[in-house]
């Protein structure tokens, strides 16, 4: 009895929170046919927003992959002072509102601050340009790779790595031949989550991008712009595309990922 109740509650909750709203977006998107939808997502602004979104997301994913793997190894394989603080810091982006992150970046990298000025004098724009957008996106998606890797690293333990080292493998060889294959699916999963989260970031990006059309406008910003300009169909079309990319990457992952053991 409890079994069914639990299932019902879980499905009911998901239905109202997730399935129905997303479903309605899907339906509204194609209300006027595929042609209208296609025209709506291939306008010059939309194509540009695609590019910006993709660049920002890919750079953020690359940064967080390297950072995530190193920090996970640090957290699981090493003991040091301040480990708990580091652990806490990794989770901070989950707790802090992205808008706050955006404002904080403005305080540090704005043109009137010493840091912003230093870069500005060298012709590099941080704020209202790609660098700040990458930083904001990387920040909000920071925990995802780490939180996927840490439990897997804990589970595989150190025996295999130690065995490799006694067999003559250097630290890097051990990582590449033993550790990386063992964590590869968790890493892929973390990367996809990071990518999906990066595509969808709005709050922090809204603050630090300056929302300059055809320059720093991302897909989520475009959705917002169209919606506030009473172009609901246009907003739904982009929303659908965003959700579609995220869902497809998750589905591909779950089908490709082998059932382990």
């Amino acid at each position, binding site marked *: 009895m409890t079994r069914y109740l639990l299932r019902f509650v879980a499905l009911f909750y998901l239905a109202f929170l997730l399935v129905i709203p997303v479903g309605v977006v899907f339906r509204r998107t194609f209300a006027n046919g595929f042609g209208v939808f296609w025209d709506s997502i291939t306008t010059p602004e939309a194509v540009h927003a695609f590019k910006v979104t993709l660049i920002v997301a890919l750079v953020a994913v690359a940064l967080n992959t390297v950072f995530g793997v190193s920090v996970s190894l640090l957290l699981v394989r090493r003991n040091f002072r301040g480990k708990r603080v580091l652990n806490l810091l990794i989770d901070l982006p989950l707790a802090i509102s992205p808008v706050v992150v955006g404002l904080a970046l403005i305080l540090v990298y704005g043109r009137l601050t010493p840091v912003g000025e230093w870069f500005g004098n060298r012709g590099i724009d941080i704020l209202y340009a790609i660098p700040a957008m990458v930083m904001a996106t990387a920040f909000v998606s920071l925990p995802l790779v780490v939180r996927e890797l840490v439990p897997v690293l804990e589970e595989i333990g150190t*025996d*295999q790595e*130690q*065995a*490799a*080292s*006694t*067999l*003559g*493998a*250097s630290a890097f*060889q051990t990582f590449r*031949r*033993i550790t990386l*294959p*063992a964590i590869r699916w968790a890493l892929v999963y973390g990367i996809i989550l990071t990518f999906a989260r990066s595509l969808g970031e709005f709050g922090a990006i809204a603050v630090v991008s300056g929302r300059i059309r055809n320059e720093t406008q991302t897909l989520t910003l475009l959705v917002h712009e169209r919606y506030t300009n009473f172009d609901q169909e246009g907003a739904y079309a982009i929303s659908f595309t965003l959700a579609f990319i995220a869902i497809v990457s998750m589905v591909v992952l779950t089908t490709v990922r082998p059932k382990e*053991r």
Partner: protein
Amino acid sequence: MTIEITNITKRFGDFVALDNVSLEIPDGDLTALLGPSGGGKSTLLRVIAGLETPDDGSVAFSGEDATGLPPQRRNVGFVFQHYAAFKHMSVARNVAFGLEIRKRPKAEIERRVKELLELVHLEAFAHRRPSQLSGGQRQRMALARALAVEPRVLLLDEPFGALDAQVRKELRVWLRRLHDEIHVTTVFVTHDQEEAMDVADRIVVIANGRVEQIGSPDDLYEHPANDFVMSFLGPVTSLNGQLVRPHDIELLAGPEPGSAHATVVRVVRLGFETRVELLVDGSDVWVQTTKETADRLGIDAGCTIHVRPAADAIRPGQRQPSPLASPVAVG
């Protein structure tokens, strides 16, 4: 290749795992590090392999200092209790790992892997994954993998600890034979005294981070240095406050010089051996005797007999110097 361990100390926080341990392991020997869990024997093995860094002291292989060398440059073979199989590689690739790291030619790797798999009787399993092998097979694979790089010394950390009793016995006979074939200096850690006595040429008894005694299995059994070694290697019972092996107690029908009154509590017949449980001066004593002696004396629960330690009874601390036992530096 001899292993010289000099004044090794290793602490984990407040816990002293190894307390100024010195030891020399002779070339070509099969040596057991024997002792209770938490006594420091595994830590010592890991220090030899370079998997732990000692706080103090040095490790040398045939006179060549290795204390500062990382494990990958020590050229030791290490076998872990839980196999440490590379799960994502086939059995053959596991065995080939060390050779691939050393960038040996492909043909040579292939030939060597084949040889080793034959040596450990796994030639039919070359293309399996470790998860498809039994525990005993996995450990043999781990051994082949360790031997592939022609290590200077072979170190085994409770190699049979995770296996069931039957496989354990088979594998230790097999390890002994393998060692007689390849003669690589081998050190293995165990907490099972029977396993140590069965397999090793020499036993190093380690407890509380110190070496208690070093010697051949016979030597340790016959001439234990102290109560601890005596009770760890073989059965003991206490007669008038003295540790005695239960087969070193004489059962007598009447009083004789040095004998004591004993009340028989229970007689357990275990085939050839008979176990007599006694009460002497209010404390429990047990004696191993033969069925014949028990029958001759007509021993049964409730009757009174007389007991005394045999004249040649093994006593702790009465060590006779043996050629196998090198001087121990303790403390």
